[in-house]
């Protein structure tokens, strides 16, 4: 499987880095920018999945176990190639 996992701060968590990036964009003349939220993504390639396991469920398990901290982060998983 090839997959992409997005991990980003929950809306209620302040993102000072995103805010600094927004300010920088505005300073560069992009005055229309009103909000920037910074996140990260993981490109993941795997071998065959264990029998009966679905790709998306597997990816969500990666997130719950390691890739995201549920206290502050949400995630979105995408299977690119099964």
């Amino acid at each position, binding site marked *: 499987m090839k997959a992409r996992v997005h991990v980003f701060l929950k809306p*209620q968590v*302040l993102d*000072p880095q995103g805010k600094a990036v927004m300010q920088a964009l505005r300073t560069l003349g992009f005055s229309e920018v009103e909000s920037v939220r910074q996140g990260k993504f993981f490109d993941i390639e795997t071998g065959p999945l264990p029998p009966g396991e679905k790709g998306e469920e597997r990816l969500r398990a990666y997130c719950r176990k*390691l890739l995201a*901290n549920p*206290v*502050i982060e949400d995630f979105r998983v995408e299977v690119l190639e099964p």
Partner: protein
Amino acid sequence: MNIAVVEFLGSNCDHDAEQWSLHLAGIRSRMVWFTETDLSWADLVILPGGFSYGDYLRCGAMAARTPVMEAVKDHAARGGLVLGICNGFQILCEVGLLPGALLRNRTLTFLHQEVVLRCETDRSPFTHGVGRGRLLRVPIAHGDGNYFAEPETLKRLNDEDRVAFRYVSPEGRVEEAWNPNGSQEAIAGILSENRRILGMMPHPERASEALLGPEDGALLLRSVLGVLEGV
């Protein structure tokens, strides 16, 4: 009395923690590698400061998934004492032994300075001998010390008297100007439900010898050692 100081790859306050009990009480801690799986001999486990695993993924995230943390969880489940300082606090949050998370400082900069802490409760082995309302001068040195928790978690921490330390003004008042990293409610340290796990961003172990500055951090170690001796 047996103290374990856990060393992760990238810990850098492990020997500060070791010297702390050695100089103050003549107690030689046992340095424990992150691969250790048995801490049943320990009375107190210290997770020291540093930048374990380069803060990869999130601060404390990789350390929280090392074998020794299973042993720390077992130790905690037995009611053992755990003290997480700085990176140790971040690891305790990542592993779920303490609620909340530590975010990037609101200044976006690494902060290294002396702060004033107010002890908020004397109901724990770590703060019993410090005393509620007492002000302590200790240093901070972190990039991710901005304490965050959901409103219901904050309410619980307050209702259960589990906020151990807050950043305050030199007069002892909570004021935004004296909250260095943007922590919610100026929280600098919190206790577990059973009050035997303390996580804090400031470094008491670096403020315990007159030669090096304030000695207020010694109160915390003396408090916990006093409780252990009473056992």
